[in-house]
């Protein structure tokens, strides 16, 4: 019986497994774990061992400082994850009763308690073990992580420039109440949004995200067909056709009417002296009037008239039929699978699952490396001229966010060269100018949210750099969709309505968890990938748990990170911590001169400023 269960574990819920085992006469004392996993006891032993190791290592003076730095960087994320998992444990215990077959009774409180613990452990086990223990699961987790690396980098990049791009992901969650508007984010839409971004008001980001999702850059959907001139001609013909086709002409006429009404309202407003005076007082009134004009015009124009025929807007890249997806991309336009790049085709190996990792993943990692190099290069310079940089004291989320982006002018361009305030700043400028990409990316973001005033003093254009940073952030976010459309991470190589738009918000969580450093973001994205993969397995394994538990865990992680893991300020404030450790003379309010390189990003916005000695494993 046991062998039969092991051989055929397919998609059985725990209840069914238990019931089947009991039918076979087995005595169930513990829940049946699938796979060869670690028990709770073994896990706790290892965690305790790690604690002991860390505590022991701290005694050794040579490793104490680097260890302390590492712990400091990890403290807030680690504590937050542990707290979130603990909070999720409560939810899991409430939601999921101990699986039991009918007529199966637990005897005594101890066994009942063991059953609860087993349930909990099995839930966490389901979330992590498959991804970390099997090649298929690992690849799945990587596949889940790929888009998160992109969105995470997008948010993180914006953050480093002192902007909080909650719109860059182009999505704030699907609107399930109206399925027809649930559109995917798509490459490019956000770049357009960012270019319009004249005033870096963080809140408008949400609106940008929504517009991005609704407007969805429909014209870009034909990507992949574009290299086919015949189709391009076909589309042009269709566009011309639309103007002569009676069914389409009628709405076109109405749109023109609508524009006419709006113009009319504005003309009338200009003719009425009082209104004209009001409009002179501010663009706000003008906008309100335009709005009213559109309203009135749309109401008038939209009245049904005799002869109206219902029409369906059908764009040329839409697959015929009701299914909301585009044509499938042609093979030459697809991103190859990663194994295929190395000449392995896993599809041909019988019995092997396709490893769903495409080249978007290395692309994401590469971008991460670039983004890593860029700000660090700047940071290194900044350290050499400490008097010029802003004092790093009290560098934290809020100070970072309440500031606006800044930067310094392009050093390679003599026309824009500011007066040399600090000669150091020009060192190596020519060499860097030879490296266009890092040069552009360095982008003054590093100088960044850190110290906008200092940057402006140095001749930076706050406005232009803000737009630039936001544009790059949007470009990173737009790349997310390549994974789904060009990489075929969903069922096929096509744009589908079901593209998971929640990646946008998850990217915020990833950026926060990763401390806005590229390495951290990649690691955090992988953790999220593991959790998401596990979440989809929760659906299968448990009757009452869904992947929403995972999304709740992610939200809690963000909340706890925002609250700095509820750690006391003694540990989270770098200055106070340094003083407590005796690294700083008490009268020094600034960074110490021999700060190690790692400290620089730590002072940047978003990087968990510091840490705790009592690190959790």
């Amino acid at each position, binding site marked *: 019986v046991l062998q039969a269960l092991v051989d055929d574990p397919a998609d059985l819920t725990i209840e069914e497994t238990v019931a089947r085992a009991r039918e076979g006469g087995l005595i169930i004392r513990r829940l049946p774990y699938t796979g060869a996993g670690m028990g709770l006891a073994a896990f706790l032993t290892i965690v305790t061992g790690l604690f002991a190791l860390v505590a022991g290592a701290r005694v050794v003076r040579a490793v104490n400082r680097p260890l302390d730095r590492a712990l400091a960087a990890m403290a807030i994320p680690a504590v937050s994850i542990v707290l979130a998992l603990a909070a999720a444990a409560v939810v899991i215990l409430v939601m999921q009763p101990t699986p039991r077959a009918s007529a199966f009774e637990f005897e005594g409180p101890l066994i009942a308690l063991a059953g609860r613990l087993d349930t909990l452990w099995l839930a966490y086990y389901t979330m992590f073990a498959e991804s970390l223990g099997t090649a298929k699961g690992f690849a799945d987790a990587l596949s889940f992580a790929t888009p998160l690396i992109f969105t995470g980098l997008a948010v993180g990049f914006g953050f480093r420039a002192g902007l909080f791009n909650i719109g860059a992901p182009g999505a704030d969650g699907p609107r399930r109440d109206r399925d027809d*508007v649930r559109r995917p984010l798509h490459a490019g839409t956000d770049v357009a949004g960012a270019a319009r971004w004249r005033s870096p*008001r963080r809140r408008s980001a949400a609106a940008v995200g929504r517009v991005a999702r609704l407007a969805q850059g429909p014209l870009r959907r034909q990507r992949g067909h574009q290299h086919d001139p015949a189709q391009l001609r076909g589309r042009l013909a269709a566009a011309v056709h639309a103007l002569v086709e009676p069914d389409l002409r009628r709405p076109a006429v109405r749109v023109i009417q609508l524009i006419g009404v709006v113009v009319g309202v504005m003309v009338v407003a200009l003719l009425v002296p009082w209104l004209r005076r009001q409009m002179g007082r501010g663009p706000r009134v003008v906008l309100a009037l335009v709005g009213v004009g559109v309203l009135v015009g749309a109401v008038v124009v939209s009245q049904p008239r005799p002869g109206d025929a219902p029409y369906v807007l059908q764009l040329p890249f839409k697959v015929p039929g009701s299914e909301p997806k585009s044509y499938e991309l042609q093979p030459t336009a697809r991103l190859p699978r990663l194994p295929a790049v190395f000449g392995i085709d896993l599809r041909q190996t019988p019995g092997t699952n396709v490893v769903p990792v495409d080249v978007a993943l290395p692309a994401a990692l590469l971008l991460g490396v670039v983004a890593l190099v860029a700000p660090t290069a700047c940071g290194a310079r900044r350290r050499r001229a400490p008097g010029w940089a802003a004092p790093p004291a009290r560098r934290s989320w809020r100070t970072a966010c309440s500031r606006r982006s800044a930067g310094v002018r392009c050093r390679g361009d003599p026309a824009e060269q500011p007066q040399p305030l600090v000669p150091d700043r020009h060192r190596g400028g020519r060499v860097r100018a030879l490296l266009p990409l890092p040069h552009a990316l360095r982008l003054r973001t590093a100088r960044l949210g850190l110290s906008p005033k200092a940057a402006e003093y140095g001749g930076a254009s706050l406005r232009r750099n803000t737009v630039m940073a936001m544009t790059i952030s949007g470009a990173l976010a737009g790349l997310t969709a390549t994974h789904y459309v060009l990489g075929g991470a969903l069922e096929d190589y096509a744009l589908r309505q079901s593209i998971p738009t929640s990646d946008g918000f998850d990217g915020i969580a990833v950026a926060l968890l990763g401390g806005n450093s590229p390495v951290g973001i990649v690691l955090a994205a992988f953790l999220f990938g593991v959790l998401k993969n596990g979440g989809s397995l929760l659906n299968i394994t448990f009757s009452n748990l869904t992947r929403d538990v995972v999304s709740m865990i*992610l*939200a809690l992680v963000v909340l706890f990170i925002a*609250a700095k893991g509820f750690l006391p300020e003694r540990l989270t404030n770098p200055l106070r911590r340094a003083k407590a450790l005796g690294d700083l003379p008490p009268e020094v309010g600034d960074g110490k001169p021999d700060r190690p390189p790692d400290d620089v990003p730590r002072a940047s916005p978003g990087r968990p400023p510091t840490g705790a000695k009592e690190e959790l494993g």
Partner: protein
Amino acid sequence: METIVLLTLAASALRATTPLLLAALGGLFSERSGVVNIALEGIMLFGALTAALVTYYVELPHVRDAPGTSVWYAPWLGVLAAMVVGALVAGIHAVVSIRYKADQIISAVAINLMAIGVPAVILTGLFGNNTTSATITNRLPLWSVGPFTFSPLVYLAFALVPIVWFVVFRTPFGLRLRAVGEHPEAADSVGISVTRMRYIGVMLSGVLAALGGAYLSIGAFNQFITEMSGGRGFIALAALIFGKWHPLGVLGATLLFGAFQALETQLGGSALLPPTVVQSLPFILTMLVLAGFVGRSVAPKAIGKPFTKS
């Protein structure tokens, strides 16, 4: 014919305005006290969920035996519970951003994220699916005034505009609230408790936003659907900025946005424009408003800055 259509449009515009107005007035309290609250969206969702659940479970024993029984107090209990839960959820935001001095945007984003996951978990536990609650029988009643018939929350929302104006601009409480948002150090120096005023402001915003959510789930509809607020919290924020953090301005801005939403509903089925374009109108308007006019709205000076008493 035309007048009827226009009347219908006006009525549906007022209905669409209501949740926006409630949330925006709530946001006004919070932001006037110096705490950015983009968690309005999430709080609305929690309010909607609570109202639907409480109403459902209060009426359940009566309705189970005789379907269609009218239990007049059920929806009102739902509204009350929504207000309490709204205050609690806003309380989380307040504690994290005031007590722990977290970035206010991030803690609010966390709440918005939770508003996606937590209701789904609760719905799974109670109803076995993760998108909708069971339908309720006793919605909020409809009150007729003249040719219009509205839910009481609609009247409440519009009645709140002068009330909020009076409270914020004509009472000692309002003066303290604004002082805390403009210059907390000065307020502190004359003995006003900055943290206390901010807690009150944020929790009031939670109460009002949750009212807006309750209107969605048991006023305009008869069940809770995941993410049913559909961005209204964010639009309310935009209206708050467009309306210069002033109740009357907020009223005008939300009316404009509400009218667009009503138009969206009306145009949705017509042949004028593809539905996606019409649906994106309010958001495009929001973005235009924020992109072009934010610089001219003068925000409370200390907004977004945690206060550290020295």
